[in-house]
């Protein structure tokens, strides 16, 4: 029977909120055994994130969406004993991950140098907003903060308008998490060849800079600071999003060359546009794109966004509906590809979550078990992994070490 790629890898996971849990989310789905360390004093914040139906600590979307396939145990890390216990766990693990607001791990004497002593080939991952070194290393940070600081907001918005926060909370969280996951896999690869572990220090700010390489290169090359483009593009026109039939329905259309432009005009029944001085070629289309957008919208208005996509794509023109959240979930293409997977959920039976955005041709598609309740796997961790007796465990619960 085929294994998952990371089966046999164990991760002690101190990460909380967004950026961190997403790192281990990828690893868990790929087969790693991820053990979340929480406690009733400090449950993963997302468990309690605001929610219409937040009856208990598993019902928030944030938590559920970021913790499938993981295990959870509760340890009161404020107590030395708990920290000792964790060390035991780390001894039988491969990776330790954390994303605290500051150098908490050091204070707990669980910094990389400490961990190395416990387990020389350990791989430790620290994710933070500004990095584990430098002037801001103790600052708390959220994706929005990092996006603002890194310049992402200054590029998100309508032409001539103001910088706006990026869509869906946590764009920087998730892209950082993915870079983190990749770095950890690379470190694992190195360990599998040399037996050496190492420390991975990820700064979300720096990830954002990587994602803005184009604007940064433009700045370092030409000292130019790019402004807001909205849906426009510096070299393509038409290149925008247009109103369609129905309420708040939109379709995005992009034309990248003369052939596509010809195809577009004929398809929407305005062949004369190809002759029109204003739209004859790319240069002129860009100069007159406001007018152009207006005219195109007169056509799109009479169609649904899916209609527009179908008719234009058949003609070889790039077009796609602006999908609403609900539409994404119902999209026939994503559906056919099985992008959504029904995950068992402790409270509501099953929930439809997106899976990770890839298919591997061989083997099972990944571990999408339901997100764990707080402390759900205490027995497994303490009894099976650390071989504690019932008594020891009871005592530790007494002492609020396991808590």
């Amino acid at each position: 029977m085929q294994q998952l790629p990371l089966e046999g890898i164990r991760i002690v996971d101190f990460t909380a909120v967004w950026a961190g849990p997403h790192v281990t989310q990828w690893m868990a789905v790929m087969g790693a055994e991820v053990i979340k360390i929480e406690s009733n004093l400090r449950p993963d914040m997302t468990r309690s994130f605001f929610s219409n139906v937040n009856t208990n600590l598993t019902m928030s979307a944030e938590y559920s969406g970021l913790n499938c396939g993981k295990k959870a145990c509760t340890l009161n890390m404020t107590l030395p004993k708990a920290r000792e216990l964790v060390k035991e766990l780390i001894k039988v693990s491969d990776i330790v991950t954390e994303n605290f607001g500051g150098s908490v791990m050091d204070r707990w004497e669980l910094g990389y140098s400490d961990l190395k002593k416990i387990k020389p080939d350990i791989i430790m991952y620290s994710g933070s907003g500004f990095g584990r070194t430098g002037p801001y290393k103790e600052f708390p940070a959220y994706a929005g903060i990092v996006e603002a600081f890194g310049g992402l907001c200054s590029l998100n918005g309508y032409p001539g308008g103001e910088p706006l926060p990026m869509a869906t909370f946590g764009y920087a969280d998730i892209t950082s998490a993915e870079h983190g996951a990749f770095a950890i896999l690379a470190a694992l690869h190195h360990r599998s060849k040399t037996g050496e572990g190492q420390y991975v220090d990820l700064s979300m700010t720096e990830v954002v800079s990587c994602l803005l390489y184009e604007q940064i290169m433009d700045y370092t090359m030409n000292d130019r600071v790019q402004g807001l483009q909205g849906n426009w593009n510096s070299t393509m026109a038409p290149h925008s999003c247009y109103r369609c039939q129905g309420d708040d329905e939109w379709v995005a259309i992009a034309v990248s060359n003369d052939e596509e432009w010809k195809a577009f005009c004929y398809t929407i029944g305005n062949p004369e546009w190809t002759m029109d001085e204003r739209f004859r070629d790319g240069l002129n289309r860009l100069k007159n794109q406001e007018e152009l957008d207006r005219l195109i919208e007169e056509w799109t208005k009479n169609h649904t966004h899916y209609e527009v996509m179908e008719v234009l794509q058949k003609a070889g023109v790039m077009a796609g509906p602006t999908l609403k959240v609900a539409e994404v979930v119902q999209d026939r293409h994503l559906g056919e590809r099985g992008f959504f997977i029904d995950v068992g959920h402790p409270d509501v039976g099953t929930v439809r979550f997106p899976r990770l955005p890839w298919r591997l041709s061989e083997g099972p598609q990944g571990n999408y078990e339901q997100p764990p309740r707080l402390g759900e796997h205490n027995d497994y961790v303490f009894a099976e992994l650390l071989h504690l007796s019932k008594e020891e465990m009871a005592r530790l619960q007494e002492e609020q070490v396991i808590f």
Partner: protein
Amino acid sequence: MGALSSLKVVEWSEFISGPYCGKLLADLGAEVIKVEKPGCGDKTRSYGPFPQDMPHQEKSGLFLYLNTNKLGVSLNIRSVTGAEIFKELLTESDILIENHSPHEVEELGFDYETLKKLNPRLVMASITPFGQTGPYRDYKACNLTSFHASGLAYLNPPEVDDIEQEPPLRGPAHQGDLAAGLNAAIATMSAIFSCHATGLGQHVDLSEQEVLASMIRRNLAGVTYEGITMTRVKGSQSRGGSVMGHCKDGYFFMLCNTDKFWANWVEVMGNPDWAASELFQTTISRRENWDAAKMMIEEWAREQTVDEIVRAAQAKRVPCTPVNTVRESANSELLADRNYFIEVHHKEAGKLTYPGAPYKLSKTPWHVERSAPLLGEHNEEVFCRRLGYTRQDLLIMRAEGVV
């Protein structure tokens, strides 16, 4: 100031014939704007020789030689914008040199009838394998097939023993294409003179087949007037009087087609008895017995060195030379003394020695002012400075594959 400094030329040509025509004009001062397709550029860029046999777009010896003194722009004239710019260039030019297949040119709408409306003064030179009319007009051809289709190859080499084993031969290297370009240059200049008088340009229709056929105009007249046909068979071409002979250390070539030359040559050989015989006294008898004469001459030559023979012959003013390789001719005292070869520095290919001027003009010297252009090297100068496009436009056009 070059003789042709006042002429503005657009060269929309590939490979050899058109570019050589452009070079001839450019080397005498005409401003030649070479239009290449973005990406690969002129086909010669892919043809050797390359330094150290390392193919490099900017280091083809053939390209470097054929495109000295030109301005280089990259332009996809199949795109709407590209066609637009191409026309803008032509309205400001005196000459267009093109060597594309007639139907292709018509499809693109750049045929003479169309262009002369744009610029009545334009001289358009079309260099094609079979010309603009006639049943073969759209046939494909290359140097090889043109050579054979012109009747030239059939006569080369001039003296073979077994025509079955020794097929007709095309001339060395790219003689055919070069000759076509050269003739185009003459025709173009003639048309320019008409333009002086009439103020009107015209279309130069040049067929490479005809260019090469006209190289054997004498043989053609032989057929039409004297009913004489020649082949490669020994004797069929020889009029007597030339020897390509073997000697101690190489080959020499000697010509004594007149009584004077013969008499002197006999002296060069030290008046051997055989030379006194009847057989060799008149041009006619010599022709009849030339094989014998050759035999005797070679017998004598085998004892001499090339140098001895050539010096002795030249002292007596008998046309005679060593049969050189390009190395020997390139290193000859003659070309050195005439300063024929020139050094040209090229950004990518570095300093190299090029063949120089085929002729020396006392007042308006032939000279290489700039090396062959890098692909698109002068886009900015031509498109921005002359046609008034902005750099921003260039960016867009590049992204669209126009430049």
